[in-house]
């Protein structure tokens, strides 16, 4: 019986003719593109020849660049008119600002370069592609609990943590005279994060990453009308195709964020701006970009802060072509390198590969750059509030005398100026690595808290909490916590911070953060399983969403009583018979409203969306609703007024929040 049914249902999965034709077409083009393999034997350059060549090149290029891009530090508007405002600021410890592009180029010490023989011309595929075709990989490598969606996925650790302040739990609901609606579940109240589904209370915007379009639908008391489809900008500058991952709807503008990809060119982080004056016909304002791959972005007070990383190698750098060693910014038709005075280099480090953290701010309403800076060193995670941005990245501890941590984390602190300017202020470092953005927070009085998991060279893992001041100097710390465990979630704003470590059981630590010079562990609650995500849930309550055993275990909801941080208890828990939920690794996938007492998230691969509330008797499962996409990662839940809308790129399903009966269902075809 099963076999017959299965066969019939799979037979139904038919490849549309249109798709067939498109794929065949792209195959034909690929055949035509296949280059003749050329064996290139390159000569070794002698130092003398190379030096002579270099001198000529330097003379020519310095002359050109110098004329084109004056190095005036106080420039308000650049020659091609891109930057509208910038502020000079002091140098910072440990970083040097070059006087001109020459000094930037000198990082790449390439007076003598030896090329490897038999280099094959790049035909657009990477070495990795070639190798993975040959080695048979067992389907066993991945399991359902580790199946990561496309958005915001990090490498090995995928668990997400969320932190809202104890004093002001973010419910992220906006109340207008007409209707209350929910917004993206973000880390810091007032600081927006990008996502695949957005609403402004009037319209629902859904990003179709597969086709670079945004579907705009008008909800009306549960009824849904698809009103428009916005086609985003497909190509940027030199014709590089853009892939959009997430978007913002903020300050009456829609901004789609993504990356250009090109086998031969430098990728760019792109922000495509549209005005929502008429939401049913958004108007394109501009497309801004900066070199590198997107690290992350935030919006605060009408300004978009975008961070990307780009590395350049001594082996591909070409003095004549500034694009091979300078970070660039661009609008839809103009581009130019970031001013040398806005590039921050490490004073003494000189190695063959340099990574820039390109840091820009853009005024949303006019789609114009405010600040464009680059700090050497790259970045992986960011924490942003209204005052600062902290960018962190891990690096290998190459000091062989120090066995305390294989990896350390470098921190760069930027200050946000009153006009949305970004100024690098300080750099610092701590042992270990962070889990994600929730491993960091800045207190109201400007102290930076960070929890890390470190590993000694012997293999022993241990966990730490560090507090640093506004110049990123260490003021307080607790090290060597929970040996052999790893951090799974954290919440560090407010007077009391919480974090969870796990190996077999899950200690939930409560730590007193009031004195930056002396943080103190107040309690340690040990329970089976762990929380991936922590969310304050009203007076004296902390919600945890995680697993009941290991990463493959069942999803578990916990409500902790944190009224007395010295005596934290687990008041209630609920274990579901599901093993996969996007919320375990992406905080934005949750709909949590303390005021409406709603906890919602999508699970698994069969279009289920769970809705809970919490009462003094425990978690109440209000409903399991049908979501528009099979796979949890593509679904988001939001409410406008008394209606719940489950949205994905495939469609929207609406439900009455009181009766939980379905009201309407709309499907987005093409």
């Amino acid at each position: 019986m099963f076999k017959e049914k299965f066969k019939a249902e799979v037979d139904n999965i038919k490849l549309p003719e249109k798709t067939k034709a498109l794929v065949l077409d792209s195959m034909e083009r690929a055949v035509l593109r296949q280059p003749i393999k050329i064996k290139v034997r390159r000569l070794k350059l002698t130092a003398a020849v190379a030096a002579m060549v270099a001198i000529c090149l330097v003379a020519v290029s310095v002359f050109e660049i110098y004329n084109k891009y004056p190095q005036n530090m106080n420039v308000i508007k650049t020659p091609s008119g891109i930057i509208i405002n910038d502020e000079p600021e002091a140098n910072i410890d440990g970083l040097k600002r070059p006087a001109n592009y020459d000094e930037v180029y000198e990082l790449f010490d390439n007076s003598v370069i030896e090329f490897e023989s038999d280099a094959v011309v790049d035909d657009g595929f990477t070495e990795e592609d070639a190798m993975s075709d040959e080695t048979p990989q067992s389907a066993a490598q991945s399991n359902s609990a580790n199946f990561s969606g496309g958005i915001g996925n990090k490498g090995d650790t995928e668990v997400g943590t969320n932190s809202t302040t104890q004093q002001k739990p973010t419910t992220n609901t906006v109340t207008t005279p007409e209707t209350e609606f929910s917004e993206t579940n973000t880390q810091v109240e007032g600081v927006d994060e990008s996502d695949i589904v957005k609403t402004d209370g009037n319209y629902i915007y859904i990003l179709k990453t597969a086709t670079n379009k945004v579907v705009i639908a008008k909800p009306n008391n549960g009824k849904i009308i698809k009103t428009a489809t916005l086609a985003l900008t497909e190509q940027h500058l030199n014709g590089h195709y853009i892939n959009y991952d997430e978007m913002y709807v903020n300050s009456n503008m829609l901004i789609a964020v993504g990356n250009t990809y090109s086998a031969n060119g430098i990728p760019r982080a792109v922000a495509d701006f549209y005005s929502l004056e008429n939401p049913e016909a958004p108007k394109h304002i501009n497309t801004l970009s900066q070199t590198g791959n997107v690290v992350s972005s935030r919006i605060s007070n009408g300004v978009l802060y975008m961070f990307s990383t780009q590395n350049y190698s001594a082996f591909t750098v070409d003095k004549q072509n500034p694009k091979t060693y300078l970070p660039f910014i661009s609008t839809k038709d103009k581009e130019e390198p970031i001013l040398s005075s806005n590039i921050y280099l490490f004073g003494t480090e000189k190695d063959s590969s340099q990574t820039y953290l390109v840091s820009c701010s853009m005024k949303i309403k006019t789609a114009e750059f405010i600040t464009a800076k680059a700090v050497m060193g790259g970045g992986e995670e960011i924490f942003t509030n209204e005052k600062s941005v902290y960018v962190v990245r891990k690096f290998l501890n190459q000091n062989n005398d120090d066995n305390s941590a294989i990896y350390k984390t470098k921190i760069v602190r930027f200050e946000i100026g009153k006009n949305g300017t970004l100024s690098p202020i300080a750099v610092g470092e701590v042992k270990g690595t962070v889990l994600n953005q929730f491993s960091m927070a800045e207190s109201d009085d400007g102290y930076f808290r960070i929890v890390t998991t470190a590993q000694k060279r012997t293999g022993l893992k241990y966990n730490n909490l560090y507090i640093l001041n506004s110049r990123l100097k260490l003021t307080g710390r607790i090290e060597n916590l929970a040996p052999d465990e790893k951090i799974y979630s954290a919440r560090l704003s407010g007077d009391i911070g919480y974090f969870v470590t796990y190996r077999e059981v899950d200690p939930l630590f409560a730590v007193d953060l009031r004195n930056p010079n002396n943080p103190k562990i107040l309690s340690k609650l040990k329970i089976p399983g762990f929380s991936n995500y922590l969310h304050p849930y009203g007076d004296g309550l902390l919600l945890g969403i995680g697993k009941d055993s290991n990463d493959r275990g069942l999803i578990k909801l916990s409500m902790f009583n944190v009224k007395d941080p010295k005596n934290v208890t687990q008041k209630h828990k609920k274990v579901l018979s599901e093993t996969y939920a996007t919320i375990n690794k992406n905080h934005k996938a949750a709909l949590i409203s303390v005021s409406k007492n709603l906890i919602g998230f999508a699970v698994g691969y069969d279009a289920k969306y769970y809705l809970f509330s919490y009462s003094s008797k425990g978690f109440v499962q209000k409903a399991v609703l049908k979501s528009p996409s099979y796979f949890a990662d593509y679904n988001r839940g939001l409410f406008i007024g008394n209606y719940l809308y489950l949205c994905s790129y495939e469609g929207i399903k609406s439900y009455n929040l009181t009766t939980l009966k379905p009201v309407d269902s709309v499907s987005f075809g093409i």
Partner: protein
Amino acid sequence: MFMFSALLIPVTEAPKNTKEVDLAAAFEAYCDMVYRLAFIRTGNVADAEDILSEVFLRLVKNKNKIDGDEHLKNWLIRVTINCSNTLFKRLKRRGEVELTENSGFDVIKEDAVLPAVLSLPENQKIIVYMYYYEGYSVEEIAGILGIPSGTVKSRLARARDKLKIKLSNEF
């Protein structure tokens, strides 16, 4: 740079391999298989189409290295699994691949078995598909995936157990 270009010494291209795969025929024969396998793994049409596209583009690149129909089928299955492993979604799009209404998933009946299969762990879904739909034997599956046949048997057994629970009346 004129100095450098004068030093390039081109070599004539390698002689054509007469055993090259007939790409059009391969596509006709196996596009549905690759698509279905990708759909089973990713659970959605868009990713399945991305993977389909990528698999056959890799076939273009590797057409000289595949010998015979059996090898081709196995190669396609392995590459499809690899592609869905690396979660292809972030790579560049080559041309517009559009979703249509005929995906066949809006009309899932109450007693459908497909959702239950889709909800199995990754390593079991593939084996269920290959065994019950493609009709491969345990030995053949072991050979294609490069895992011991004992592993295939035990995964199949576990999948059957899970499906029994989910589909109570079907097994």
